[in-house]
């Protein structure tokens, strides 16, 4: 990714973005469905938008997904 696309990505905001609080509230549901291969981005587009944009929440999601898939430990 070059500077232009990185800055464009940083400045783009998705109005569907639910924010950290609701994304964290639903994280276990979202991660379990994602781990089972369900179309979570279609079912919960606002959570998906948030996890794409928020580094820390996205990191927590990746960690929980790894745990659910049995990749941890």
């Amino acid at each position: 990714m070059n500077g232009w696309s990185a800055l464009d990505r940083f400045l783009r905001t998705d109005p569907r973005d639910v924010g950290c609080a609701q994304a964290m509230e639903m994280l276990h549901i979202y991660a379990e469905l994602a781990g089972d291969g369900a179309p979570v981005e279609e079912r919960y587009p606002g959570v998906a938008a948030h996890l794409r944009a928020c580094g820390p929440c996205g990191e927590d999601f990746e960690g929980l997904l790894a745990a659910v898939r049995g990749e941890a430990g």
Partner: protein
Amino acid sequence: MTEQIAAPAGLDAESAEWPRALAGTGPEREEALARLHALLVRIARGEVARRFPRLQLSGPELDDLAYQAAADALVAITSKLGQFRGESRFTTWAYKFVILEVSAKIGRHFWRHPGVRLDAEDWERLPDRFGFDPAQQAEWRDLLAALHRAVDQELTARQRRVFVAIVLNNVPLDTLVIELGCNRNAIYQTLFDARRKLRAALAADGYIDDDGWRRS
């Protein structure tokens, strides 16, 4: 925006058993606590290892962090058993606690790290933060000058402070949460609003539109 959670399809036997055993008494509860603690330690260690390449921590510190996260998660889970509504497997719900504990403890670690700078302003770093090629400075110099102006003129004092810490100084968002004594959602929302304002300012100046950059 809010999203509705789908109704649970029915609790599996193991997920029904965990809260019952943990809310019980005597040896059965002790055994369930020990089993859950062991699970949480395994998940915490896995999560610390997954994040390890980006952490400035030694081996014993990492293990200590994992054990502390597991212990704190166990306390939180047992005190919030009534909040488990069966929308996922019990273990998934429990794992969320330990993942978030690891995340919070890593944020606190950076907060204590003497190298973390929150308010220092070095705008020379801005091109590097976004990965602009110094050899092509003639193409992006005006854009980044406009961005700097927009930060100065359009953002509130709080939005500016969050932008400087996270973008210029590369401070982790969770570290800023601790420093400013608020929560992740508040910082994210502050930065979200700042991003929206900055894009609008750059659009008004003719640098960007819905399709992307307007490069001459």
